[in-house]
């Protein structure tokens, strides 16, 4: 039975939502505020957005982020899909152990991951660049994709694979003609999740980035040292728009793949 909420409960929920979303709403609002200071409303402006688009280093950071997050997402999806299909198709010694190893990078504190990756690159004499950022991002993005695809595979009826084989598919064709097409929604939603994780990461990236490879999140972080500038509000607002859009797309894809498997 569903009951109606009493006034106390409504108040609690409202308070909760305000605490949760007020900072974001404030930030979005101030990105349109015609004032240098974050105090009081002095009229609507798009000035900060114009300034932001004129700033060369901001532009560069965006491009860097797109390259880094794009590459690490694609790599993570491919590696995650291979790993998940391997886990689905074969039984081997140490499977459970390997399974839990895949999750460790996602739960290790980002700073520790950054430090350990930095020392690894140092030992291997790999100079820091976009490549090292991408490698680092893949370490925590791949498990996300792997997990997403694995869940989709667990719900996949094995007799469909047998039916494919029965109708003439070789083992490889079962994967290419039946498994992969059905995994597209899971791969996309996993990829989008990985992309957002990669886009917003500061801590790990901070350790492994080369001097010229400032990503968007690092740029925002760096700008904060010089004090709160309204352009940062503008940039953060754009970032929120992008991540929320990706989140919504991901949700739709997931719902669709759930509906499909029913």
């Amino acid at each position: 039975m569903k009951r109606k909420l009493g006034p106390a409960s409504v108040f609690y929920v409202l308070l909760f939502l305000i605490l949760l979303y007020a900072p974001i709403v404030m930030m979005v609002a101030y990105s349109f505020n015609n004032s240098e200071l974050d105090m009081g409303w002095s009229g609507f402006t798009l000035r900060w957005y114009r300034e932001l688009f004129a700033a060369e280093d901001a532009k560069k950071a965006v491009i860097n982020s797109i390259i880094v997050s794009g590459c690490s997402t694609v790599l993570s999806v491919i590696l995650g899909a291979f790993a998940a299909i391997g886990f689905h198709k074969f039984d081997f010694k140490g499977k459970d152990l390997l399974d839990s190893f895949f999750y460790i990078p996602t739960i290790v504190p980002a700073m520790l991951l950054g430090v350990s990756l930095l020392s690894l690159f140092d030992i291997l004499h790999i100079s820091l660049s976009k490549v090292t950022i991408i490698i680092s991002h893949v370490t925590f993005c791949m498990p996300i994709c792997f997990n997403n695809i694995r869940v989709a595979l667990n719900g996949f009826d094995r007799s469909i694979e047998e039916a494919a084989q029965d109708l003439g598919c070789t083992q490889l064709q079962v994967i290419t003609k039946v498994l992969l097409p059905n995994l597209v929604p899971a791969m996309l939603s996993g990829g989008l999740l990985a992309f957002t994780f990669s886009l917003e990461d500061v801590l790990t990236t901070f350790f492994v980035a080369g001097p010229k490879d400032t990503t968007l999140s690092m740029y925002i972080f760096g700008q904060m040292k010089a004090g709160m500038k309204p352009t940062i509000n503008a940039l953060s607002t754009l970032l929120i728009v992008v991540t929320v859009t990706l989140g919504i797309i991901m949700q739709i894809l997931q719902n669709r793949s759930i509906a499909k498997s029913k």
Partner: protein
Amino acid sequence: MIRDNNMIELIGVTKQFGEMTAVNHIDLIVKEGEFMTFLGPSGCGKTTTLRMIAGFEEPSDGKLFIDHEDCDNVPANLRDVNTVFQNYALFPHLSIRDNIAFGLKLKKLSKEEIDKRVNKMIELIKLEEHINKKPSQLSGGQKQRVAIARSLVNEPKVLLLDEPLGALDLKLRKEMQIELKHLQKELGITFIYVTHDQEEALTISDRIAIMNKGNIEQLGTAEEIYDTPKTKFAANFIGETNLLTGYIVSQDSEKTVVNLHNQILTIYDADKKYKERERICVCVRPENMHFVDYLPDYSEEKYNTITCIYEEQIYIGNLRRHILHTPEGEPVKITRCARKGEVYNRGDYVKVCFSKKRCIMVKDEEV
């Protein structure tokens, strides 16, 4: 090589999963164009046998021939048999048309040939208006039709059906049984059908293999199995039956004398040879069991008579089922036409009888 019309031959086929023997040394021949059913309770090895023919499981021992070809090490995708799965197993990402065309496309047939055969099949299963839909948009019965079409379009030598109607409701299932039977006769393809539903097996099969604990208990037509079950399990599993335990007194070339809790019965069944004092069950179908009081042509020469204690009657539409038990506690069921108004009270001692020719004996064993 002698060419007979054996389509499937199993010779001593065994399948073990670890310690468990799922299929125990089965010999079986399925003829070309035959509708063969594997019938048995769950875990009897019927699905495992089917999966070995399909190529999803390797026999642990024994030989398997499909159309005289040894199937050792031939993977499922190279066998000229197709399977219809219980849960349909349609490809969710493909339209109905592409589902049906899947096997033909893999065989790299020309587009015209594929279109021709797919269209013919779609017409046959009467799903013309659904060809561009996805499987998730179809009902269970429609999905099963697509699954059957997807297999048959490849014109396999044998179609394997693994409880294909198990997920459908009773009415639809009965319709589909008839449809399948007609389809099979029309196409002349060998069907091997797995089910645990004895009524379904009786309806659609040319021959039935009754399976239990990895063995084939009896192989024969529906009539043969119903009228002359060879084992207690077969008698029990197909239809309803009364099983009365006793032992052999004597046997000659035409009749057997049985002691049933000190009532001496004569049975005109001497096909199977028994030793003296061997424990047996006398099987009488409920429709062959009568009340002495209501049998006009009753005579002691023609009928075996036993005394039972009346329990109750159950009205089931056109029939009335009377439940009784022997003084030793063995249940006895009698089915009679519902209109006949035989009335007894609970606890009445009632004389019941069955023709000396309309009963058979099976060995008494644990089932």
